[in-house]
């Protein structure tokens, strides 16, 4: 009985582990007290859409999901409360588009270093990543 209960608890987690894959995660360098951005690809292997709704890291005072938008020949940024990753698709967080913004970095982020970031998905739950800092 105990084994059955344990299996019931573990199996859903095992399924979720491969449902969302994070690939090519990287961040730009940034100086202490400045801001920078995190980019990555989210591959949703499930037949169900999922939503990235938050990101956290001890690296900066605030971590927010943002999107860059174009208005004529001008560019701006606005918070993106939630980003839907459609079923069986890949969504790219990339320069000039959606990104995770780190506001008021607590330390210098230099090329070659890395940092731990947790991404929060509505269905897949928490996914920890370690993006590399590069240009």
């Amino acid at each position, binding site marked *: 009985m105990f084994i059955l209960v344990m299996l019931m608890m573990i199996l859903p987690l095992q399924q979720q582990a491969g449902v969302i894959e994070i690939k090519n995660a990287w961040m*730009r*360098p*940034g*100086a*202490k*007290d*400045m*801001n*920078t*951005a995190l980019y990555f690809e989210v591959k949703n292997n499930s037949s169900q859409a999922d939503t990235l709704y938050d990101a956290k890291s001890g690296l900066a*005072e605030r971590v927010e999901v*943002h999107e*860059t938008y*174009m*208005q004529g*020949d*001008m*560019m*701006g*940024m606005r918070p993106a409360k939630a980003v839907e990753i459609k079923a069986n698709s890949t969504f790219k967080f990339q*320069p*000039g588009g959606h*990104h995770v*913004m*780190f*506001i*008021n970095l607590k330390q*210098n*982020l*230099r*090329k070659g270093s890395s940092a731990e970031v947790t991404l929060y998905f509505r269905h897949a739950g928490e996914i920890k990543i370690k993006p590399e800092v590069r*240009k």
Partner: protein
Amino acid sequence: MKKFHNLSFFLFILALLLAGCKEKLPVKDDLSGISYGLVTQDSSFFTFPRDLKGHVVVVGLIFTHCPDICPLITNNMERIQEEAKKEGLPGVSFVSISFDPLRDKPSVLKEYAEVREIDTKNWIFLTGRQGEIDSLKKQLHYVAIAGDTTYSSSGEPSYFFVHTDRITLMDKEGRVRQEYKGSSLNPADVIKDIKALEN
């Protein structure tokens, strides 16, 4: 018949003149007679663009707290700088001018360049008084509008700009000769134009 020949000759000369006028990179704006008193990342006084006379100049306007577009602009300038080195174009200079002088003091610009490992041999970062920066922005038809301000735990203001996405190419006389979309240009196009202005 003679009249016809005269007309043909006239049209030929006109065509030549028009071809000359359609010169590769016409002057879009002339800053050669204007001087902006700015400050470098090393806190030295700098007169823009006069102190760069004799250099073809790649200019980007940025604010250092920008996490996405300005780093793209800076990164594209680095790509142009690398290509210029490979092509052996020593006469080209790079300038990043902050339109957020309230926060972008010289030391902040220095840190911005250092943490990104930017080669500052032929690249300067400039800031200055707000009035001077505003005047330069206006001259370059550049727009930057600050959004709402929030404050960090230490009381530091945090705000972002909606701003023009552009890299500007100036000739050796301080005249604007070409403009590119700063975040998504092709460095090879800029190199081609630099070569045209170097000659």
